[in-house]
């Protein structure tokens, strides 16, 4: 506390003091921080259960002070189904990257959303596989170079990038679906509100809540953190437009 000053912002206590291993400027850490802020503000730290993926955020449970389960690659939505069906009164969320959710886990993701499983999915889309060293993801942009698309992603050969928020929003079991970004303070504050909305709608038992978070990867995009902001704004957001794709609570107004 400082005499003569009021506190405007400090990191949430629900975010453990363990140093996060993410690269400097990686949006994963921002998202971890936001989720934990929301958990703290909503007072659900003692109830919530998270499911971590395989990918850069495999160690999410080292940073978030809540009960956690580690899922096999792609299976977080199945694991979360098991948890929520066993503990229907506890808030449950998955935290997944683009390989985990849209490649190996696509079936589990789509079916959980189709069933309207009552947990929240936080999907980090940075158009690349980070942990394994920068391979192409289902969300890699056309023409984007990765280690498995060294000449740029060629849609004629490997298909177009997948727009998960749009696909998921078509499923009747989904209660809330939005795409957000963490590329500037305005968007970060907006994203925090969206995270909270997901947990609120989860608590209403209306169905699956899905938040796609357009993110960066300084190391594998081969860009400094500040330069990644250009790629996010000029490339990612042009293909992955932000906004609410579905909101059953708004439809009834």
């Amino acid at each position, binding site marked *: 506390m400082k005499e003569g000053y009021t506190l405007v912002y400090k990191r949430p206590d629900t975010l453990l003091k363990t140093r996060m291993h993410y690269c400097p400027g990686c949006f994963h850490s921002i998202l971890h921080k936001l989720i934990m802020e929301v958990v703290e503000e909503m007072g659900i730290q003692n109830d919530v259960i998270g499911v971590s993926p395989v990918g850069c955020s495999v160690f999410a449970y080292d940073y978030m002070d809540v009960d956690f389960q580690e899922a096999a690659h792609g299976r977080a939505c199945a694991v979360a189904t*098991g948890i929520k069906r066993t503990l229907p009164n506890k808030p449950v969320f998955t935290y997944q990257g683009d390989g985990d959710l849209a490649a190996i886990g696509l079936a589990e993701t789509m079916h959980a959303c189709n069933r309207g499983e009552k947990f929240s999915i936080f999907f980090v889309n940075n158009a690349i596989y980070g942990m394994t060293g920068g391979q192409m993801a289902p969300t890699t942009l056309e023409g984007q170079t990765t280690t498995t698309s060294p000449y740029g992603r060629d849609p004629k050969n490997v298909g177009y990038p997948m727009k998960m928020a749009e696909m998921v929003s078509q499923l009747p079991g989904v209660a809330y679906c939005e795409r957000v970004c963490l590329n500037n303070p305005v968007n970060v504050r907006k994203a925090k509100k969206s995270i909270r909305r997901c947990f609120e709608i989860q608590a209403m038992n209306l169905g699956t809540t899905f938040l796609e978070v357009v993110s960066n990867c300084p190391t594998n995009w081969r860009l400094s953190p500040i330069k990644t902001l250009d790629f996010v704004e000029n490339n990612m957001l042009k293909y992955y437009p932000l906004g609410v794709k579905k909101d059953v609570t708004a439809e009834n107004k």
Partner: protein
Amino acid sequence: MEADVEKKIAFMKGNEALAEAALRAGMTGYFGYPITPQTEVIEYLCKAKNPADDKYPKFTVLQAESEVSSINMVYGAAAAGGRIMTTTSSPGFSLMQEGISYIACADIPCVIANVQRGGPGLGTIQPSQGDYFQSVKGGGHGDYKLIVFAPNSVQEVVDYTYNAFDLANKWMCPVLILSDGAIGQMMEKVVLPEPIPARTADEMRDEKPWATNGKGNRKQRNIITSLNIQSDAMERRNNELQEKYRKIEAEEVRYETYKADDAEIIITAYGLSSRVCKKAVDIAREKGLKIGLVRPITLWPFPTKIIDEFAAKPNVKFFIDVEMNVGQMVEDVKLVVNGRKPVYFYGRTGGILATAEEILEQIKAKM
């Protein structure tokens, strides 16, 4: 028969009896996928959840989109503190191996049943015993074991399934009921066990303080993981698992011997094969041949001690192992016998069960 918690004696199909036994054991969650020859399990459980009159309010059944998904739902639900089961048949069991490796490494108690069918590949829906290796040696990656029960009757399916949940809790590991398509489909008289009421959320929380059910007023959060990225942590985990397995080997071996005390020829067989072999023993005894059967009931932990005893007996001339595969358990028999006596093998595949006479012919040819 439909789920009926009142019935004490019934004439039931193996798969349905498995489902009924699990319900009576206070199962709280079942996640599975249809596959012949065991689809009756999930059908029975889905029928039991009648929305107009739900007699099992604390039980959830969900048809998953695949076996891969099923085993991961089991992981999540069991790690959250539930009494959880899945069932499948051989090709589905292959799909579950990754999930089983994760469950075993993370010390998660759960029950799995594999109602074996012929393989390899898509195979046939006929029964087989072709998944012994996969079940006992670890079909998934890494060094782990499952406690494996091999019932040979519908009654045994009921008894072992009913006890499996508590046994899994005792050892914090998966328990596998290794059945086959014939046992799954056959109908026999069963005595059904007393139903245990399903646990409430508070009871589950008290019983399993390690489960991820919300931090509550615990000081530390609970983490269920099989990730041990540092070498010393991975070695430590492996050593802990091995320590646990040594204890299980000391306490949980089950087997049956049949007319083996004075036998000169020992048949080893499990599950369905063991029933035909019993008949072969009876026919042989009528003819004055001293043949007996050693039937492992737990395939892991394997009954090494009893087989070792017979291998050491001077009057035992040889062993013959009979399976519905091309030779899997026979390797474990040979390991224990360790060259002291010949160990022969006779097997049929494709769902074909050797007759008692056929087995006796094989034995006579070796005499």
